[in-house]
């Protein structure tokens, strides 16, 4: 998906938002293909997302069920049972209970079938269906992640906007370097710092727990800082590239103020490439949730993941990993489908030989962000 944005013909020759001069960039074939092939394109992308999801499930299955030398010992130790203490008959019974006496492929097929029917297994330590656990924990995490993504977008946009707009050199350098610090400091440490300052010293917010909206603020800020830093870095670079384009000079020549030109002409074009890192933002909030919920003692999916790994609760770990992959795949799919609507110059229906198609379209936001950054200005 993302490669089309960065490597595509339009990205190199980003023109003004007006459709007139840009339509020439889209070849006639592309326009025809956009009409006729859209349905097929959408179906193809959805199918591809499902394949990636299946592959992610398979990868976690391989890691969690094939990598350990003795999965049974892992499962039993979660229940504080030593393998050595069992008689051969008990051992066989335990193996049969977890289905470990069957060939790997049979286990794989059975678990995949169950997963497709919405049965993600039973938590070993809690003896509760995993889906029920997820359903209990998910709303809190969704609230937190949603707020964090909003804060990250607002913060990143503000910093990038100011970095491009401010002219006083020290302030400009400070603003453009601020995101580096945001990425560098580990988020669990940032969380502790926020607790120390805003909960213990100032007493504005509760330090831990998940009671009420006030408890949401500090963890959301903690999660937002690294993501907004990445967002700000990409947007700053993109804004600077865009502001150097001739149509900005034209806009300024027509009497538009710097802020006006930046808002009405530069930002809209510069913001488009940052769409491609939306998947990264979501991935960041999912991993951020693990650490943040642990720091703030919030009963969410992230905390569930941490507990599950500590108690080696394999089905829960597998479910959380697949859930995160699903969120990531879903967001990337949405971005893929929305992109042609937001930027009509780009048509996904056309496959150029240069756009290493399948590889490029499932490419990571990280590499595509890197590619955006490396784009010669």
């Amino acid at each position: 998906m993302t490669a089309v944005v960065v490597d595509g013909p339009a990205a190199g020759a980003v023109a003004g938002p007006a459709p007139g001069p840009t339509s020439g960039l889209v070849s006639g074939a592309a326009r025809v293909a956009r009409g006729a092939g859209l349905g097929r394109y959408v179906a193809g992308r959805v199918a591809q997302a499902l394949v990636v999801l299946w592959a992610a499930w398979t990868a976690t299955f391989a890691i969690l069920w094939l990598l350990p030398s003795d999965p049974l010992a892992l499962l039993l130790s979660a229940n504080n049972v030593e393998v050595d203490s069992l008689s051969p008959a008990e051992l066989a019974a335990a193996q049969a209970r977890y289905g470990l006496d069957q060939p790997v492929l049979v286990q794989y097929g059975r678990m995949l079938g169950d997963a497709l029917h919405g049965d993600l297994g039973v938590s070993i330590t809690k003896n509760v269906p995993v889906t029920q656990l997820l359903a209990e924990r998910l709303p809190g995490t969704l609230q937190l992640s949603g707020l964090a993504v909003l804060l990250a977008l607002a913060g990143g946009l503000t910093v990038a906007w100011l970095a491009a707009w401010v002219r006083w050199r020290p302030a400009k350098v400070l603003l453009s370097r601020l995101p580096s610090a945001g990425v560098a400091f580990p988020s669990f440490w940032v969380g502790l710092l926020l607790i120390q300052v805003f909960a213990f010293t100032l007493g504005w917010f509760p330090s831990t727990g998940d009671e009420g909206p006030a408890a949401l603020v500090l963890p959301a800020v903690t999660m937002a800082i690294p993501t907004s830093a990445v967002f700000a870095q990409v947007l700053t670079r993109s804004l600077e590239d865009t502001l150097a384009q001739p149509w900005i000079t034209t806009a300024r020549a027509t009497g538009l103020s710097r802020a006006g030109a930046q808002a009405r002409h530069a930002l809209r074009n510069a913001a488009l490439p940052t769409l491609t890192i939306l998947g990264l933002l979501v991935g960041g909030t999912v991993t951020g949730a693990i650490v943040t919920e642990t720091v703030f003692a919030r009963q969410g999916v992230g905390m569930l993941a941490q507990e599950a790994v500590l108690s080696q609760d394999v089905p829960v770990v597998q479910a959380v990993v697949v859930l995160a992959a699903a969120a990531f795949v879903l967001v990337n799919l949405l971005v893929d489908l929305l992109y042609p609507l937001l930027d009509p110059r780009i048509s996904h229906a056309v496959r150029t030989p240069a756009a290493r198609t399948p590889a490029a379209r499932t490419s990571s936001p990280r590499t595509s962000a890197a590619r955006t950054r490396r784009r010669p200005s």
Partner: protein
Amino acid sequence: MTLALTRPAPAVASGDEGLLTDGPDGPDGDEGRRRGRRRPLEGRAARRATTARLLLRRPGFLVALAFVVLVVVSALAPGLFTSADPYATAPIDKLLPPGPGHPFGTDELGRDLFSRVLHGGLLTVQAVGLALVLALVVGLTLGVVAGFVGGWVDAVVMRAVDVLLAIPGLLLALAIVTAIGYGTVPVAVAVGIGIVPGFARTTRAEVLRVRTLPYVEAARTGGASWGRVLLRHVLPNSWGPVAVLAVLDLGAAVIAVAALSFLGFGAAPPAAEWGTLISTGRSYLVTSPWLSLLPGVFVGLLVLGLNHVARTLEEVQR
């Protein structure tokens, strides 16, 4: 923060980059063919000298590099910087604030925190080093094979890499840690596997670019085997971006190792990685905030330095 401020403004920097933008490989390859054997070596040396001069002109880069080197040295030989035993408990001196005797204060058992940070650095440096070596070896191999062999091998390898990319890094690491257990080495393996996809992708892209260049064709025409072309021509010329990515990923790897040890999957006590130090200090956050916050500042400055070095290298290289 000070590191960030001392760096010259980006606008100035981009002027410097202009000197090098005519490509590191192209002219060299042409020269090599036209003027015989000695010229390209001199050209390469001259280019290195130019790069070095560009780097020296950036004080921020030097400060960042110096700090990173200092941290690595202090991790490998903590005795040079502190004489305190990281495991010697002294209940009388517990929870002392930072002061002359104890630069970072003492923890709940009276152990010197500065010494514990430096000794914890060794574990972190080991874990990060192992993760990076693993990622480099696996990632380079996958990338070179995919880019060089092409066809269905390329397709299979890159699909596998894409799938790994679809799982957020820390969660992938958690799954691996669940499967293979806790400790410094499992954490390193988990973090290393998490950064393999980036290396594989970058290497593949570079190999694809380099293998179509005229000098590769010339070498093939001259009778060199594919293996030789790969080792002598493709790999050395694909290195640059991969090396930069390696330095960039160092910072990410430090954070990932710290996060995993913070979550409690690192080395067993009394040894403590940085994340573990921060995590144990949490219980005393109200009364002794330095226990958590100072090791974190240390980690943050290190990552800031590493990222700055990587980005400067990336800019100068272009």
